[in-house]
């Protein structure tokens, strides 16, 4: 093999090995998190603060995104339907797209930045300043103390935040229809109820649970595997956001194929 060909081949090989190693470490962390569930006394006291930080504090950004998504959905639906389809279908489109897709996915992506980055940066800083080692020397299991409460908080709070965002998106779509599209409330509600099924809400919630677990566990993974000081913390944070965003999109397609 020529020297020129060897360089890229080695780089690809190294990247492949590194990716495999990361998958192995992620699997190890996942197993560790499941095993650490039994250490209830270690993670339970940490749960409430994380429910607040991951869930309650994320509500404003989720509602903000949902509100403008609802407005845009209503306007775009009306633009698309003009003349061909009855305008009450605006309610159908807003409801269906917000509940099934945009509510969970946009919220998930936004929270991968807000929550995932926060977790990766916090745990990464703890790792490089030896605070994680200090926890271990004090006989704490870092996975039980740091990882488990964050993942549980993500799994519990993401669906609640998404359901609020869904409601906000629909309300914004309704208000837009009322004030900018000259529709009446009965018209909007008629469209909204036309193809609505309770399963849609469950589907949205199930997706959100998986997004919550993804964002928190990926943030924990990159945070705990941080090396290299401040630059390393920056790298971990970026990797956490990029990786969790990609996984969210893959999961989105997966749930659509499996559940719909």
């Amino acid at each position: 093999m020529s020297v020129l060909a060897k360089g890229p081949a080695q780089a690809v090989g190294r990247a492949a090995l590194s990716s495999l190693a990361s998958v192995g470490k992620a699997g190890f962390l996942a197993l560790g998190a499941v095993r650490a569930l039994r250490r209830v006394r270690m993670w339970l006291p940490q749960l409430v603060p994380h429910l607040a930080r991951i869930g309650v504090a994320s509500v404003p950004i989720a509602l903000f995104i949902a509100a403008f998504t609802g407005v845009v959905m209503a306007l775009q639906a009306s633009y698309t339907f003009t003349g061909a389809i009855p305008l009450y279908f605006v309610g159908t489109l807003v409801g269906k797209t917000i509940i099934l897709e945009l509510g969970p996915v946009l919220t998930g992506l936004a929270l991968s930045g807000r929550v995932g980055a926060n977790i990766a940066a916090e745990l990464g800083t703890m790792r490089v300043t030896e605070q994680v080692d200090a926890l271990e020397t004090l006989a704490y299991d870092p996975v039980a103390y740091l990882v488990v409460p964050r993942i549980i908080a993500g799994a519990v709070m993401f669906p609640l935040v998404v359901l609020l965002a869904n409601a906000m998106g629909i309300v914004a779509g309704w208000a837009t229809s009322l004030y900018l599209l000259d529709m009446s409330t009965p018209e909007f509600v008629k469209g909204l109820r036309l193809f609505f099924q309770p399963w849609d809400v469950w589907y949205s919630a199930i997706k959100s649970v998986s997004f919550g677990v993804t964002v928190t566990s990926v943030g924990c993974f990159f945070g705990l595997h941080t090396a290299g000081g401040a630059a390393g913390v920056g790298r971990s944070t970026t990797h956490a956001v990029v990786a969790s965003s990609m996984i969210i999109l893959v999961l989105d397609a997966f749930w659509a194929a499996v559940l719909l």
Partner: protein
Amino acid sequence: MSIVLKDVHKAFGAKEVLRGFSLEVREGETLSIVGGSGSGKSVALKHIVRLLEPDRGEIWVDGRHVGALSEEDLYALRREVGYVFQFAALFDSMTVAENVGMGLKRIRGMGANDIGRRVADCLRLVDLAGYESRYPSELSGGQKKRAGLARAIATRPKYLLYDEPTTGLDPVTTAVIDGLIVRMRQELGVTGVVITHDMASAFRISDRVAMLHEGRIRFEGTPGEIKATQDPVVKGFIEGRPDLVEATS
């Protein structure tokens, strides 16, 4: 022998840090491990509580093979060992009192009042009484190290491991920390292992000194013996004479 490291090897990638490191720490003594920066002193120390695992070799503490301990037995061992980190490693989201009390929460049967009393005692011992509600960001470097020491002694450990406890401190604060290390042995009777490259400090606090060079122990003896040695590497290190070290390589 209370702590024994036998033929420990540890590499990070291609870099071999420990290459047959063997050392025995006796009950009740304070032993300092000296050596140049990056020689693997902290790596050796982390093996004692399994923060790192050796590629080869064994670590024994009080007759227990550290590498073979179950998770629960490892936690039990860690409760007997206090670890003072180089940069204190205080939890920055917690107050000083919460930091010091962290290890105590892991002891069954200790209520909030007991923890509060023990925290106050430990902070008094390191001259930080009144700092309970401060956060680490509000402390000076020396105060952080003392708070780290208070956290390490709070569980009344049998062993204390100090990772460069005086690095980066002014001479007065260094003397204060050295005094505390001596008090820990005299008043609490703990066995101590101190990582340092500050020879003056090592001579003040140690019963014995071991020098780590090229991944293994080059010299082991009392402060008097190390001062008298004619080994050019050891002599070069303690006298700060690179010419002696270079002549051997």
